[in-house]
C-alpha cells in the first residue's frame, strides 16, 4: 500500500523483458525495435494513438502472436506460447465472456487445469466474485449484466488463478465515465493488495497517468516505437477527485499528451 511497493524499482527483478521486438503483418510493419523492462509489481501503462500497435504488443507479450523479431521473456523464461501465470483482460467483454456459461462457470473455467474439485472451483470463484463486488451475480449469465458488471466478471476470471502478470487491453474503453472510474479504483486496489505486475494498454491519457506507476508512449504507426518512458510520481493512494487535481498529475498528463500527439 505504500508508495515504495507501488513503484518498486529493482533492476534485477525483471518480470517482463522485451528486447528489440518487431512485429509485421506481411509488408506492413507494426512495431519496431521495442525494448522494455518491467520490474515485478509495476503497473505499466502503454498509450499511443489508435492503430499504433498497442494491441499487437499485448498479443505478442501474451504469446498469442510470435514475435517477428527480438525476444520476449516473462519471469526469465522466453515466451513461446501463452506463459503460465499470465492472464489477459480484453476490451470486448461481451465477446470475451462465454454467454452460455453462468458468471460462476465463466470465472471457474481457468481453474479446471489446476485439478481442483468442483466444490473447490466453486468456492474459489465465489471468493473472487465477492472481491470484485459481484457476489449476488454468480448464477446469472453475462448478458443479463450491465457492461461494467460484465467487465468485472472478466477481471474476476483473470484474477482467479492469481496471475503474476496481468495484461489489460483497453479494458475500460467502452464503459461510461462513472463505471470506468469505479473499475480503475478496483484495479488499483487489486494491484495494491496482490502486487501483481500489470501492463495496461489504453488510449486515454488521463487514465494512463491516474492508474499507472509508469507510462510508455508509442509513436503512431507504421513501425511504432517507444517515444517516451515516464515514471509517475504520484502518491500511492489515488483518489479520483484529489489526484486528478494535483499539479504533478496535470503536468504529467500534458507531457504524455504532447508525446502522443507527435512531439517527442
Amino acid at each position, binding site marked *: 500500500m505504500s508508495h515504495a511497493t507501488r513503484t518498486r524499482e529493482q533492476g534485477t527483478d525483471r518480470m517482463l523483458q522485451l528486447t528489440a521486438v518487431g512485429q509485421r503483418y506481411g509488408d506492413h510493419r507494426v512495431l519496431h525495435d521495442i525494448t522494455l523492462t518491467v520490474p515485478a509489481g509495476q503497473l505499466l501503462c502503454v498509450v499511443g494513438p489508435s492503430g499504433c500497435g498497442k494491441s499487437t504488443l499485448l498479443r505478442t507479450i501474451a504469446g498469442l502472436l510470435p514475435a517477428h523479431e527480438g525476444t520476449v521473456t516473462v519471469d526469465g523464461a522466453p515466451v513461446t506460447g*501463452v506463459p503460465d501465470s499470465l492472464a489477459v483482460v*480484453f476490451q470486448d467483454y461481451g*465477446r470475451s465472456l*462465454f454467454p*452460455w456459461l453462468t458468471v460462476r462457470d465463466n470465472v471457474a473455467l481457468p481453474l479446471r487445469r489446476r485439478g481442483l474439485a468442483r466444490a473447490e472451483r466453486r468456492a474459489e470463484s465465489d471468493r473472487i466474485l465477492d472481491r470484485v463486488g459481484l457476489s449476488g451475480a454468480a*448464477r446469472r*449469465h453475462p448478458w443479463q449484466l*450491465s457492461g461494467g458488471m460484465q467487465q468485472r466478471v472478466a477481471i474476476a476470471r483473470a484474477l482467479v488463478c492469481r496471475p503474476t502478470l496481468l495484461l489489460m487491453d483497453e479494458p475500460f474503453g467502452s464503459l461510461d465515465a462513472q463505471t470506468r472510474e469505479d473499475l480503475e479504483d478496483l484495479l488499483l486496489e487489486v494491484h495494491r493488495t496482490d502486487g501483481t505486475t500489470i501492463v495496461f494498454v489504453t488510449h486515454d491519457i488521463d487514465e494512463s497517468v491516474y492508474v499507472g506507476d509508469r507510462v510508455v508512449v508509442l509513436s503512431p504507426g507504421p513501425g511504432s516505437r517507444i517515444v517516451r518512458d515516464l515514471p509517475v510520481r504520484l502518491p500511492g493512494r489515488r483518489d479520483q477527485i484529489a489526484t486528478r487535481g494535483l499539479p504533478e498529475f496535470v503536468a504529467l498528463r500534458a507531457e504524455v499528451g504532447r508525446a502522443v500527439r507527435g512531439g517527442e
Partner: protein
Amino acid sequence: MSREAETAPQGSPAPASLPTRARAAAHTVLLRWLVLVLAVGIWELAARAHGSVYFPPPDRIARHVHELWFDGPARHLFLSSAAVDDILPSLGRMTAGFALAAVAGIVLGVAVGRSRRAYALTNPVLQFARAVPPPALVPVFVVVFAFGTPMQIASIAFSAVWPVLINTAAGVRNTDPLRLDVAAVLRLNTAERLWFLVLPSALPRIFAGLRLSLSLALILMVFSELLPGTANGIGFTLTEAQTRSDLLTVWAALVLLGALGYLLNTGLLAIEKRLIGRGRAP
C-alpha cells in the same frame, strides 16, 4: 434452477408486463388454430360437394385414422395392434438412421471445421454429396445391403448426414477468433475448448442442420418402405393400400405422416430452445 426467480437484470429494458404478453401469445395461438380449422372446413365442404371416392372428406379420414391406429386399450396408450405394427417399425428405423446421421455429422463436422485446410479441401465434395437427391441413392444401398432394415437405415443415415455435417463444419469454422484467443489465454485443453467454446457457439448451426436432416430422414423413411422387401411400416401400409385401391387408408397414412413430421420437428425445436435459450440473450 430457475432464472426467473432471480432479480431482473439491470442492463436490460423492462419486459412488457406479463398479462399483456400472455394475451398477445394467446391471440396468435387462437389465430393459428382458426386458420387450420378454416382450411379443414373448406376441405370438408369441397370433398362433400364433389363426392369423389378418391377425395374422401377429412372427417372420414380422421375416423379412419382412429379406427386403424388409435382405438387400442389405454394401457397401450390407445395404440391399436396395427399401430404397433406400422408406426413403431417406421419410427424405429427413422430414429436409428437419424441418430447415426446426427452423431456422424457432428463428429465429422467438428473434425472438418476445426482445420481451415480440411474445410477448404472437403467443401466441394460435401456440396456435391449434398446436391445429390437422396432418394436417388437408395438403389445403390439396395445393391449393397439387399432389401430390409439395414438398407433402410443406411439410406436414411446417408441422406440425413450431409446437412448436419456441412452446418456443423460451418458453425465450428465461425468460432469467434477473440474467444479462441480467450481459450488460449485460459489454457483450455482441446477437449475443454471443444466442450466449453466450439460446440456451444456452433450449436445454432448444428440445430439448423439437424432440422433439415430430420425432414430428410422422414422422407427417406417413407421412400425406403415403398420398395419391395418391406413387410411393415407406414410407407408399406401406403403402397399396400394403394394396390387395393383403398384410398381412405392412403389418405389416413398421409395424415399420419404429416402429424408425425410436425411432432418430431416440434420435439427437436423444444430441445433446441432448451439448449440454446439457456445461454443467449432473448
